[in-house]
């Protein structure tokens, strides 16, 4: 990952946090005076480097981990805004990335019972919950959306 791609990645994340949603390719290009094709080429390299995740069939972002560009079962209220996280790990990651307290709205993957977790000073208020990961770490990026 060269410096230009790191800069594009950091800009993309900055725009995501600034607006509360995934930036479009045109918004990103306009911000740096580049063409959409230039941004697309950079985003594809970043996708290949696991620095962000693109949609499979459109020129859009799918993930800027821990943030999700699409609605998910993990919603996070942090920094006066609602966000979608890609998974339970990322839900806590949004509070971590923003360096704020927050709360997570999700549900038990088994029974569907709603789960609300408040995160304050980097700690959850419900210590009885469990996190389960099915895919071993070495295979997380085989199919990151499934993971």
């Amino acid at each position: 990952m060269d410096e230009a791609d790191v800069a594009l990645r950091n800009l993309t994340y900055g725009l995501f946090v600034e607006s509360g949603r995934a930036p479009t390719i045109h918004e990103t290009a306009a911000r740096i005076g580049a063409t959409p094709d230039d941004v697309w080429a950079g985003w594809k390299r970043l996708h290949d480097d696991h620095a962000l995740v693109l949609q499979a069939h459109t020129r859009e972002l799918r993930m800027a981990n821990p943030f999700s560009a699409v609605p998910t079962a993990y919603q996070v209220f942090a920094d006066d805004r609602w966000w979608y996280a890609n998974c339970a790990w990322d839900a806590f990651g949004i509070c971590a990335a923003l360096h704020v307290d927050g709360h997570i709205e999700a549900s038990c993957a088994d029974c569907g019972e709603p789960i609300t977790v408040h995160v304050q000073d980097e700690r959850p208020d419900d210590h009885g919950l469990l996190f389960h990961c099915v895919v071993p770490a070495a295979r997380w990026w085989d199919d990151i959306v499934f993971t």
Partner: protein
Amino acid sequence: MNLFRSEEHISRWLGPRDRGATIPVAKLCELAHAWWGNRIDPYWQPRTREQNQAILSALGLTDAFWNLSAGEDVS
């Protein structure tokens, strides 16, 4: 990567599938802060696989399940 009410719920949800790794939510929160804490820093730089592995190891996640050996270089 999901949340569950209890071990019983995990077992029921898995059914015949192989079990992965389970950690308490407090450990998950700690992991998330170590892993994602620098994610929107304006001067963010990619981490190496070794750096990522060190984060997991520092939290006691050292068994084979958490071994990143196949190429987790950035996230």
